[in-house]
């Protein structure tokens, strides 16, 4: 058993399970949180993540295969994806390559949303690109089922913010490429509705952009 990443919510362990190399995603107790609150959150998210990953897969989106869900220990056993986090690739790839990746990401987000799936935590840490340049969506723990404009917009708002803070030099390009792919799936009318709502979400904060 090898710890390959200690994430915010869970430990990712590389394990052999039924003669397969698998990832064991273990939502360990958070000692900062009240035990009863902690247990409720971990169990809820474990179940929901497994359900959402499965549903995303049903509509053709690349996610790790789920092999086993242990609700009692808040653990999911899933396929081991070999690849890099987009966070790393974004700093080392050519602009041309990134353009096609980000347009593709926009397309996939569009497909998720059209299927009523909200990812809930879209960051460049939660997208894995494998050696064949296939894009895997991981970490659906904050996800939910929703058809609402608000939820879709929050999903993209969080991604926009994550790009602006982590990849601020290229963020405007990344964001526009994502929207380009997104509008291919949801249509230009829906896409501009989402864009408007993203601006209004930003305006709800106490201090808003002067731009």
């Amino acid at each position, binding site marked *: 058993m090898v710890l390959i990443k200690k994430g915010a919510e869970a430990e990712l362990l590389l394990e052999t399970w039924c003669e397969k190399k698998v990832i064991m995603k273990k939502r360990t107790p*958070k*000692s*900062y*949180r*009240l035990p009863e609150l902690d247990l409720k*959150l971990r169990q809820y998210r474990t179940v929901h993540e497994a359900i959402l990953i499965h549903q995303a897969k049903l509509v053709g989106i690349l996610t790790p295969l789920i092999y086993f869900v242990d609700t009692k220990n808040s653990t999911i056993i899933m396929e081991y994806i070999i690849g890099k986090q987009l966070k790393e690739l974004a700093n080392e790839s050519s602009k041309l390559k990134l353009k096609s990746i980000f347009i593709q990401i926009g397309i996939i987000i569009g497909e998720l949303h059209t299927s009523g799936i909200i990812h809930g935590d879209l960051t460049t840490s939660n997208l894995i690109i494998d050696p064949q340049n296939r894009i895997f969506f991981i970490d659906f723990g904050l996800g939910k089922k929703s058809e609402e404009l608000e939820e879709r917009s929050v999903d993209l708002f969080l991604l926009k913010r*994550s790009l*602006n*803070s982590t990849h601020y030099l290229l963020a405007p390009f990344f964001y526009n490429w994502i929207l380009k792919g997104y509008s291919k799936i949801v249509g230009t009318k829906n896409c501009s509705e989402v864009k408007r709502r993203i601006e209004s979400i930003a305006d709800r904060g106490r201090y808003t952009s*002067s731009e």
Partner: protein
Amino acid sequence: MHNKKKATVCLGIESTAHTFGVSIVSSDGRIISDYKSVYHPPLGKGIHPREAAQHHSEHAANTLKDCIQSSDFSLNSIDCIAFSSGPGLGPVLRTGASVARALAIWLNKPLIPIHHAIGHIELACKLTGAHNPLIVLVSGGHTMIGAYSGRKCRVFGETEDITLGNLLDVFGREAGLLFPSGPYIEKLAKEGKNFIDLPYVVKGNDVSYSGLLTATLAKLKDGNNLTDLCFSLQEVSFSMLTEATERALTHIERDEVLLTGGVAANSRLSNMLRTMTEDHNAKFFVVPREYCGDCGAQIAWTGILASKSGVMTDVNESYIIPRWRIDEVDIPWRD
């Protein structure tokens, strides 16, 4: 030419909300004096901008006088004047800016505009020794998780509606507690025994507190025990922020976390963040209690840093910016 031996001395004026603060800080890092006068709204009320501004203009002269007299400095030996130019309440900002402009003109010294929240961060870095931390800023005006990178404070997460300070103050006001309510809620929470289920909303690295406020107020009206509610409100709202911080920390992989701003005085919050941070083998820093609230020193110290980088404004152009976003501030000393 600069004489290397002589330290620069900055007088800073804080006036964004309930506190009018004046402080003298030297470039060798000493806080020479720090005085404040605080406006207290009547029980059951929040800050009234015009009344707060009125309070500040009545107390400005004495606060300034106390600060200077206790410092062993004459006004003439001060090298620059810094003031909080935003964000905050318009009338209150104008009061502080007027005092700063008058001093700058009269003494013929450079005038330096400072972003209030950058002041919280820089003073906290200076007092704790944090270098380049993931920043958790919690106050009446901000609930933000950010970090410096490329001359800006990049925001990784924040509240999507009301701030943590606001959540506590509004709940406190409705529960009949004095403003600011954080310290009273913390005290009552210690007596709470039963956890009441409340909405826990984390969106990525963001939090949303408006639903939590509505639900907690509804439970209050239903006659739930106030100590239990304070306890549960703290547990849920602080856990949400700690979780969002944990997400940001594993995303950007820094080795320090710094807690600053008024709500940093809450020991339950800082304990939660400390536990989480140490669990990720990072170092945790929290601003000393006496400097967590708004104060002149946060403006004066940041004024020192800004003056070294040549930041200043012409008096004619020294506008206040009531809704100045933290990620729009250019920070040349953090290049």
